[in-house]
């Protein structure tokens, strides 16, 4: 396995421990109060750096020789410390941030209302939240720089005030002005954001991916459009250059205006210091303080702006965290391979009368869409029955399933389900796990029951070599064929031991013999379960206990094959004709 012992040796382990404690306090803040700002989270670290610089700046109060010596140290120590102390520390912090935030992010995403994931309105927030973890890390650096510069400017201004009050006031004005100007000026980030929002910029990305990506490699060779796409890409680059150039010139001019104003004010203050006369040492110190104050003061606006950006993403992350459930404690699992435990199997209660799941007068409209996907639909599923759900593309079959398993909640009406459900989706994910893990995901509390995994794989008709069952990450999808994938997806349902199975086109990629074999195998395995089968292959649906035909979000027909076929002109009759006419 990938797990290795994670030790953090080195002389700074103690420091890292101190920080860990501080950080733990901060992170609970994240968990409890979703409105935490990145700046708050960064405070402990910022203090470390800020204090150091503030101390160095205090040295200015001892002119001339002692002050110079301290100044020299103040210059040298941060330079030394920034890489030797701060670097590793920042890395440790960044690790901790990721280790804490990523699981919480994942957990929230897996517990928030599922519909949000596909809702176009919430995409921006979801995207921002994905970057939120990185933003919190960056915010550490930014906030510490901000505090450092605040402290530095404050100290330098105070010192200057004791020497030349008027010059200090002018420097203060310069700092405030530069802050004001920074509001006008744009940062690199804003520039990048604005530029990347240009449609032509996005087009360049899309086109280049077509040219060099794996996805279009086959079609590019067959259709031979490489030259066209390359030319289009070049045109897009040239076009975006024109659009960018204008924008960039504008933003450059603004920045230059800010620079001219700030440096001008600094020069004026310097002249004032010089014009006043006084000892060389005092003058030198005053100038030094002046330069420090205006330079650091000028940076404050930049830090503030950059922080605002990171804060935005952090706030989005907080928003996502607030919508889902958090994990109280994330730890490395002790081992992924524990010996199998003995398992108890409880046979499901069988009674044909009692509905184990029901949709009553359900109406559902997808966000961003006008027409409802499901309108006033009622459906009862009784324990032990085999129900086939058929209908043309876009008739609402997938929506019914999503409502049934609780991924979506209805706008009107109600959905009841009393039992656990196992599902094989048509576009089931092809995880890059071992086959063993893939199957055991059906019931993760039995993740280590190796015996059970093997027997389930056998029951699903999968005869895989051992290295694929419990080996390392599969590197290539080629190792498992399409039919095997589909069996794996079904094996997962088997392994989940759920009393209700929802199978969405479980054989779409299978050859006829494999399809027949698979149904034969699962016929036996499903004897104890209630099955909802969604399919376009009416031959597979015909012997179901009940066939429900959907069209336009409503149930249009409901009954056994024979009953439905009695109506030749009905939707089912027509579909049956179309398909069976072919193979007779």
């Amino acid at each position, binding site marked *: 396995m*990938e797990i290795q012992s994670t030790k*953090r040796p080195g002389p700074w382990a103690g420091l890292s421990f101190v920080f860990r404690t501080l950080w733990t306090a901060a992170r609970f803040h994240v968990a409890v109060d979703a409105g935490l700002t990145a700046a708050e989270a960064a405070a402990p670290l910022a203090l470390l750096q800020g204090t150091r610089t503030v101390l160095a700046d205090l040295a200015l109060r001892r002119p001339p020789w002692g002050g110079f010596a301290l100044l020299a140290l103040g210059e040298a120590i941060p330079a030394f410390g920034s890489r030797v102390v701060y*670097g590793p520390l920042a890395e440790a912090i960044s690790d901790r941030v990721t280790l804490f935030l990523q699981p919480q992010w994942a957990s929230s995403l897996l517990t928030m209302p599922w519909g949000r994931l596909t809702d176009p309105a919430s995409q921006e927030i979801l995207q921002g939240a994905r970057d939120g973890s990185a933003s919190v890390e960056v915010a550490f650096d930014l906030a510490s720089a901000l505090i450092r510069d605040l402290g530095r400017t404050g100290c330098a201004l105070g010192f200057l005030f004791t020497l030349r009050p008027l010059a200090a006031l002018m420097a203060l004005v310069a700092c405030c002005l530069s802050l004001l100007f920074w509001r006008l000026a744009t940062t690199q980030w804003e520039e990048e954001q604005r530029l990347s929002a240009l449609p032509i910029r996005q087009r360049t990305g899309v086109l280049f991916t077509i040219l060099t990506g794996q996805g279009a490699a086959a079609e590019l060779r067959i259709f031979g459009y490489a030259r066209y796409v390359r030319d289009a890409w070049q045109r897009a680059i040239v076009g975006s250059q024109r659009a960018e150039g204008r924008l960039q010139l504008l933003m450059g001019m603004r920045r230059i205006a800010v620079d001219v104003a700030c440096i001008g004010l600094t020069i004026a203050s310097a002249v004032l210091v010089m014009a006043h006369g006084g000892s060389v040492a005092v003058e030198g110190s005053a100038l030094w303080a002046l330069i420090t104050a205006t330079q650091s003061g000028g940076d404050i606006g930049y830090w503030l702006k950059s922080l605002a950006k990171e804060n935005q993403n952090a706030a989005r992350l907080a928003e996502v965290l607030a919508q889902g459930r958090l994990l109280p404690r994330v730890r490395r699992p002790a081992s992924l391979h524990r010996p199998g435990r003995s398992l108890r199997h409880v046979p499901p209660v069988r009674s044909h009368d009692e509905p184990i799941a029901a949709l009553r007068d359900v109406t559902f409209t997808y966000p961003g869409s006008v027409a409802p996907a499901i309108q006033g639909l009622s459906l009862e599923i009784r324990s032990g029955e085999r129900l086939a759900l058929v209908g043309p*593309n876009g008739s609402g079959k997938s929506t019914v399933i999503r409502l049934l398993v609780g*991924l979506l909640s209805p706008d009107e009406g109600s959905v009841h389900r009393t039992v656990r459900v196992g599902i094989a989706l048509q576009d089931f994910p092809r995880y890059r796990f071992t086959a063993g893990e893939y199957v055991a995901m059906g019931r993760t509390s039995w993740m280590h029951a190796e015996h059970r995994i093997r027997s389930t794989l056998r029951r699903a008709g999968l005869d895989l070599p051992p290295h694929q069952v419990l080996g390392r*990450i599969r590197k290539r999808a080629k190792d498992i064929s399409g039919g095997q994938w589909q069996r794996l997806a079904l094996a997962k349902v088997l392994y989940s031991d759920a009393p209700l199975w929802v199978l969405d086109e479980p054989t779409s990629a299978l050859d*006829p013999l494999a399809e027949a074999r698979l149904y034969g195998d699962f016929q036996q395995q499903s004897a104890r379960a209630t099955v909802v089968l969604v399919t376009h292959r009416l*031959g597979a649906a015909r*012997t179901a206990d009940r066939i429900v035909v959907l069209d336009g979000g409503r149930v249009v027909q409901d009954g056994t094959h024979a009953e439905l076929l009695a109506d030749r002109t009905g939707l089912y009759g027509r579909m049956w004709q179309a398909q069976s006419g*072919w193979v007779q």
Partner: protein
Amino acid sequence: MKRNTLVRLVGQAVMRDPLPLALDLLVALIQGGLYGGVVAALAHLVDVRTVRAVLLWGGAQLLVALCGRLRPVLTRRAQNGIRLALGEQLAEATARLPYADFERSDFLGDLEQATSVLHEDRVYQLVQGALTTVTEGSRIVAVSAVLVGLSPWLALPAAAAGAVQVWADARRVREQYSLYRKREDRQRFADYLGGLPKDPAVNAEVRIFGARRWLIHRWYAVWRGLQAGNHALADRQMRRDALTRGATLAVYLGAFAWGVVLAAHGQIRLGGVVALAAGVRSVQVATEEISYQMADGQRHVLHLLDAAHVIDRSAACLPSPSLKASETITATGLTYRYPGSRHRALKGVDLELRRGRLLALVGENGSGKTTLARILLGLLEPESGTIAGDGGVPARRSAVFQDFVRYHLSVREEVGLGDWSRLSDDASLWEALTAAGPGATAAAQLGLDSLPVLSGGQRQALALARGLFAQGDLVILDEPTAALDPLAEQELFGRFVSVSRGRFTVIVTHRMGAAQLADDIAVMERGRIVERGSHNELLMARGRYARMWEAQSRWYRDGSGPWRSR
């Protein structure tokens, strides 16, 4: 070889639009020289005490800042020039590479590295690094001139401290890169695991099966494993840094003490001490910057070598010969083995395609149907065996795959890429869209040039429209109807039969109903064609095809079905 390609690559990229780069170089030189001016002004400031000195200093500072603001505007153009030159090379190279390369994960790693050269503007950064080196170098020269004026011996130790820094940075970069390449797979796996909750289908499944905790812990375990390596690297790095920074600090403090001694002897004045300290620090910062840039450049070069590797590789590839056929295409003794696989996917396939006759390829999963289709399309080069036509005009190829491409382009381009020479032919675009069914026309309802948001079904329809628009002589449909309902499916196959007139057409399918429509059927098993003939002949033969037919049609004929009645 690789290095020559690298030099050529960078050279071409830089020479594409050299003017902004030259201007940038000029600005960089001025900027560096001005730093010297600032230090000189500082040295005179405290001594001379004139308003003129302040103005000098301020003016220098202002110019430095303005130059800094000017450079991005200039370099943007340079950056685009480099991007264009490099992209051209890479696009040409990847288009020449054989398709089989895209099936290998190790090659995909190389390709990802190679394209990162463009995405991350590595050549530009390399050039930018060189310019920064020039700036810093001129800064060192300018400041050293001032320093030598104060005390001639000071430049030496500053340079010595810098040399240590260069060594340490170079080591760091090499270690980082080798660690990165070594753990690329695991890193990608960790990223993959981390991104899983975002995928709606995965998210749904994980919720339903209650695998949330397990998934998160799985990521956690992999991530922790990766971190252990990072920490080891960081620790080594920290020790090296402590050494180099210690040396730097010692030199700086020594220089300062030297200045104080000189001042105490009255050789220099107070302003001289300030300028000395600032100057030494300035030289050190500049050396560090140069060292950093050199190390960074080394990192870029390592990645650029990957790009050079891809380009070299493609140079050795010949374009697949075009297939000239008027009436028949004959394949003889085709064998194929996927790279890294132990078994042959094809073990000697003979096949004849005739114009106007639809061939259906059926067979079990993994019997080699798709491989054969890919070889016919010229995507894969057979290990042995040949495909030959009977002369005439070159045959255009066209295909619709089960895992079709999602392009994210306008409808016109999504469809028109099939045959881009007719991209502006609206009438035939609409024809293809109509032929592909209502899903395709619905996708284009906002106009051909719209960039629509598409459902899965609509994307499949567009892929079909693209295949039809290509008007290929050789058209292959690889299981295109997996997600279609019975009525739509029948309509599509009916349409395809009419397309097959006057063309070489192959359909790969599991639907025996569709196979029945074909003129010839070839049944594959374990990389060989085991039966061939018309539907009726094959049914009479009572072989594998008959069994498959029986398995699928049984449910429609008699009363049987997959679920036994209880």
